[in-house]
């Protein structure tokens, strides 16, 4: 590839569609609409994102795959169905993410590490089963395209479970008890929008040490900015 088409960030919204979500599914759909509206106002940011929406319960429905939000009229609606199988969700991600990255690379894009925004309102109905699939998904040795996972728990979801799902402690969000669930979802969607729009360079990477002492030869340049 002589020239790349640019950089893209694959983003996966993975939302719980178990029956207990019934009271809040409208808020979730409204959150997705506002994400879409926000990105339509930021076409350059939208150009660098490919957005997939997956709903999970006992199985997974891929509502949309690798959408370019600039040319998407409206986002699909999430619904409600059976249980809360985390294993089903991670298994589909494990299939799709490497294939999606390959497809984007074939189109000439350089691809950022994918981001998964995982939202659940309950404890998994497959405890003990989902962990192995999850470990494989996030292990960068086994899965070079392993995503960063930002996890948000509302309702009955326990903090310890959400912490296990998030790939870093600071990527775990649990709604404070007493806070309206709809508000928590709105905040989650706002955080999603912000991070999608601001998917710029991150600090870090490479073998480098912080300079911690003033070097002997240091002098501040005379003409400062």
């Amino acid at each position, binding site marked *: 590839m002589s020239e790349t088409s640019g950089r893209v960030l694959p983003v996966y919204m993975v939302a719980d569609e178990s029956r207990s979500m019934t009271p809040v599914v409208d808020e979730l759909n409204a959150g997705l609409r506002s994400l879409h509206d926000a990105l339509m106002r930021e076409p350059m940011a939208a150009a660098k994102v490919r957005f997939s929406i997956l709903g999970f319960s006992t199985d997974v429905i891929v509502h949309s795959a690798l959408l370019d939000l600039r040319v998407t009229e409206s986002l699909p609606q999430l619904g409600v169905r059976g249980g809360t199988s985390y294993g089903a969700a991670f298994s589909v991600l494990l299939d799709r993410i490497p294939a999606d990255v390959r497809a984007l690379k074939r189109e000439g894009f350089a691809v950022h590490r994918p981001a998964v925004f995982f939202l659940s309102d309950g404890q998994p109905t497959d405890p003990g089963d989902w962990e192995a699939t999850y470990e494989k998904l996030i292990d960068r040795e086994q899965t070079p395209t392993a995503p960063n996972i930002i996890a948000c728990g509302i309702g009955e979801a326990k903090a310890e479970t959400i912490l296990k799902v998030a790939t870093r402690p600071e990527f775990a969000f649990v709604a404070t008890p007493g806070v309206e669930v709809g508000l928590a979802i709105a905040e989650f969607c706002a955080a999603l929008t912000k991070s999608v729009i601001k998917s710029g360079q991150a600090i870090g*990477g490479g073998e480098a040490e*912080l300079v911690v002492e003033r070097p002997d*030869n240091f002098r501040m340049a005379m003409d*400062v900015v």
Partner: protein
Amino acid sequence: MRNGTEVDREAGWDPPVIGLPAAPGAVRAPATQPYRPDTVIDGWSSEHFHVRCAAVRGPAHRALAVPRQDECTVVLHPGSGAVIAVVADGVSNAALSHLGATVVCRTVVDYLLQALDAGREVDWADLLRCAGWSLVEYAARQLPEQPGGEPVFDPQRAERLLATTVVIALVRPDGPGRARAWLVRVGDSTGWLLRDGDWHPLFAALSGPADELLPDGVSALPRVPTEPVLVTAELTGGEVLVLGTDGFADPLGDGTGELGGLFAAGLASPPPMPKLAWLLDFTAGTHDDDRTVLAVWPVAGE
């Protein structure tokens, strides 16, 4: 004018378009102080060299009212005829990285001018440490958490505020039409030798076509490599030394595409100064970062 933030296009001044054209985006005033121009252009000629550089704010920063985070500086050391060339790219996630990029460029120039004045060998690792420390010092003195107190030298805070990549070249004349260059870098700003229209990278690629994903982050000052790699290059007749930020390097790729051809032609000889900035205002796919190019030509021998 269409509206307050769009720029009128004028016949003959449309910047180059690689691939599909894009609708012109908004160009907003940076929402920061101190003053920082959208574009800088510089150039001069000496007994031994011609130099040109331009740093241009990318479409994303223009639309989001973010100042240009790229910086370039090129100075002549009168005694030796050497050129000191520095290009820096403030890291997006560091809030004031545009200041970091400028502080580092000035510090590097100051350090190398001193070394050349004193006729001493350049200690490249020390140079990078001093460049890194300049961010810590600047954050402590110019951006204190508590104004009026004793300065607090906090490298982590300096990194959060001011992190920047840098690529540095010291180019010395080496006989008629020839020169020798020494280069070091931190992060993904990089350099090439442009020879007969071909782009020869001077640094190893940070990620290759076989890599599944882009690197997770960019290494940047005030972090310094544990073992900095010093690259040397000989410039002979007709070769051009080019430094650039990733906003140019990414779309350039291996240089065999349209953008590579455009800049190879544009830099075949020193262009009129505004032309380099005009070229850098290109549209190419989703590439919307700030873009900087600094080029050095040895003056042809008799």
